[in-house]
């Protein structure tokens, strides 16, 4: 049996197919965890516009995102998001600076893992595309504008497909970072020390792989700093606290590569908090702080920058014993007069 198409039947079929495809896209967009994450991502950046007089902006990945906007002062805002790489940071900064703003200081992450292999491709890459497109960025759209626009269609979005595959794979195996109780402050510190160190070490090895092996992160760093400077924004590089076992895999050679890169781009203000907390109660997992740790870190940041960064009412939380914070360039004096 040979069915014969006419242009009319073909047009009907194509219309039906497009309709089904559109419905599938809508369904995916409304129900997929990936796009729920996208909503959150955009909401964080959009929140900036609700704060009229922001002077200090925090950018980075989950190490920075833990400084929740609720505990920040009105003139400080955090657009960091878990999984962001330096390309995503650049994209967001471009967008923020393209809008009316009073930003004068950028707290830019200088964590070693941001320069490793793991952040060459961010899971938030497609989210950041929107900001690069909107601001007409000359960098970051390596597949071209057309391909980027195409990628905005949910079912054409490569990152979504990657997310979907991982989601399916998760059905078969447990997350390498352990169970859910790890995400609570008590969960982490209640684990046996040996187990905590093992998990932290494994996580650190994975995160610190390939530091210095790729030029892209360093190029993005230069672009971020240049962009900030072009808008009169002062850049402060921050290294966030992690557990000692997590940091073991960060070698002196890695540090040297990053230090050289920061020096080359002229970033002199570096706040290095990597080793300031030794007690497990300051952490909720190998490289993220507990509430106690966050409060302590905020106090350190305020002391060192001589800038009010915490919201009223949030600065009376215990700072713990974090007195060993050291800055490589500025010690304990104000960084910017």
């Amino acid at each position, binding site marked *: *049996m*040979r*069915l*014969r*198409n*006419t*242009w009319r*039947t*073909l047009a009907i*079929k194509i219309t039906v*197919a497009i309709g089904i495809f559109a419905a599938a896209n809508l369904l995916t967009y409304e129900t997929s965890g990936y796009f729920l994450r996208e909503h959150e991502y955009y909401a964080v950046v959009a929140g900036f516009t609700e704060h009229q007089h922001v002077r200090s902006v925090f950018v980075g990945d989950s190490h920075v995102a833990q400084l929740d906007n609720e505990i920040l002062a009105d003139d400080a805002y955090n657009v960091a998001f878990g999984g962001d790489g330096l390309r995503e940071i650049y994209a967001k900064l471009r967008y923020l600076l393209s809008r009316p703003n009073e930003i004068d200081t950028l707290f830019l992450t200088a964590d070693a893992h941001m320069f490793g292999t793991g952040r060459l491709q961010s899971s938030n890459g497609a989210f950041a595309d929107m900001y690069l497109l909107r601001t007409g960025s000359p960098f970051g759209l390596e*597949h*071209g504008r*057309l*391909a980027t626009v*195409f990628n905005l269609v949910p*079912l*054409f979005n*490569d*990152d979504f*497909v*990657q997310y*979907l*595959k991982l989601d399916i*794979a998760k059905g078969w195996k447990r997350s390498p970072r352990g169970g859910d109780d790890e995400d609570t402050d008590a969960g982490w510190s209640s684990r046996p020390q040996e187990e905590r160190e093992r998990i932290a070490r494994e996580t650190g090895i994975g995160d610190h792989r390939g530091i210095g092996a790729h030029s892209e992160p360093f190029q993005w760093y230069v672009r971020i700093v240049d962009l900030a400077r072009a808008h009169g924004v002062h850049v402060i590089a921050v290294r966030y606290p992690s557990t000692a076992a997590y940091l073991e895999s960060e070698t002196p050679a890695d540090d040297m590569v990053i230090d050289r890169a920061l020096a080359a781009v002229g970033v002199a203000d570096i706040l290095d908090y990597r080793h300031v907390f030794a007690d497990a109660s300051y952490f909720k997992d190998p490289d993220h702080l507990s509430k106690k740790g966050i409060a302590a870190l905020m106090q350190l940041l305020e002391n060192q920058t001589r800038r009010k960064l915490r919201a009223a009412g949030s600065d009376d939380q215990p700072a713990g014993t974090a007195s060993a914070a050291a800055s490589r360039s500025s010690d304990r004096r104000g960084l910017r007069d």
Partner: protein
Amino acid sequence: MLFHTVIYAVFLPSVWLLYLLGGRISLRAQNFVLLVASYFFYGWWDWRFLGLIFISSLVDYIVGISLDATPTPRARRFVLLASLAVNLGILGFFKYYDFFISSLTDAASAAGLDVQAPVLRIILPVGLSFYTFQALTYTVGVYRRQVKPERDPIAFFAYVAFFPQLVAGPIERAGHMLPQFKHTHHISADDVTRGLRQITWGLFCKLVVADNCAIVANRIFDSHAHLPGSVALIGAFFFAFQIYGDFSGYSHIALGSARLFGFELMQNFATPYFSQSIPEFWRRWHISLSTWFRDFVFIPIGGSRVGKLRYAFNILLTFTVSGLWHGANWTFAMWGFLNGLYYLPNIFFAKRLESSATAQTLTRNRFVVVARVALTFFLTLLAWIFFRSKTIHAAFLMVGSIFSGSIATNPAPVLRQFGLLSAIVTAGAAIVALNVFEFIQRDKGFALQVESRPLATRWAAYACVVGLILCFRYTGSALDFIYFQF
């Protein structure tokens, strides 16, 4: 411009609309649209190499007319040789110069001679081997008086550069292809439907099968460690499906794209991995090239109508040359030679091995059929190791490992170390899907040729294939089609 990129998704419908408009004006306008589009398509990679296509086309255009105007056999032969010299000269220079020079210096130094010859590190223009061979079918055809010389330059230049099959075939015969440029195409809805179906199937083969298999195959073949036989076998297995998905996928997109313009290209693959013997495999794999070598190399050097020893020599020579056609490396020559060796039992033990069964007629003893298919697949898989390896030494190490005791080693620890376990699951599922579709549709030109199926089956098949493309396609940086480098 790659077939599976967004730019092609814009390019193709744009050219198609222009082509439809051209059809309202004249045949020449249609051909002109195709010519400009094809040059644009090729120039997207590197516009500098457009000159080579132009020269090749110009020479063959003039040679065709000259052959027609030249009455004496001797003069005709001279004109043909001039065409061969130009076409094969360009091919030889760009593709084989560095290879032969470095092979020569290696051989000389092995013999204790100090020979210095310049290696030029020449860039190989994409698709050079394909369009050169296609152009040759024209001049040889005119010489043999099988093809009439084409006097319309636009039609002829469009024939040589026709974009759907310009860079990786199918290598069309002038006798089949040129006449299609001689009449206005009135494209039907059936042409479009079939073309879109075949493009969809090609995208599945490329994005879901080939590119997912490439993750596994590349990681294993690019590993410099000595691998256990089980891991080497897994690498070869996934490469077998990578190259099949990649090249058949390309061919399907090429055929589907051509069909949108009303052109019919020859089928290039016919479920080759269901073959029950090596000769059958070569009747089903890269059909346009296999038949090209049969018609333009094997038969002219004597073919099969000679003594058995000479027949065997002809087979080995043809396969080895076809191996070298794929690339300027001894690994390709070895791959071709090995396939020639596989062929020999059919020459010397033809009666015993005579096989009338094909994958389309899975009758009688199914166990025997499955065993024959498995053996044929295994032999081709071993040959693919030479095709994919960087050096002959590396290939022999891998084959040796497969035939060693390490074949019984549990591959999981190595695969886990390579981070390949989840990639294997995805690629394995893609291979299963491919084979299920192809087995069900094994008597069709391609697996999504479902027009004779009930409506519900058709739409279920579309949904399944499109769903797999959308949800399980490879998502890293775009991988080139393997055959583009040839």
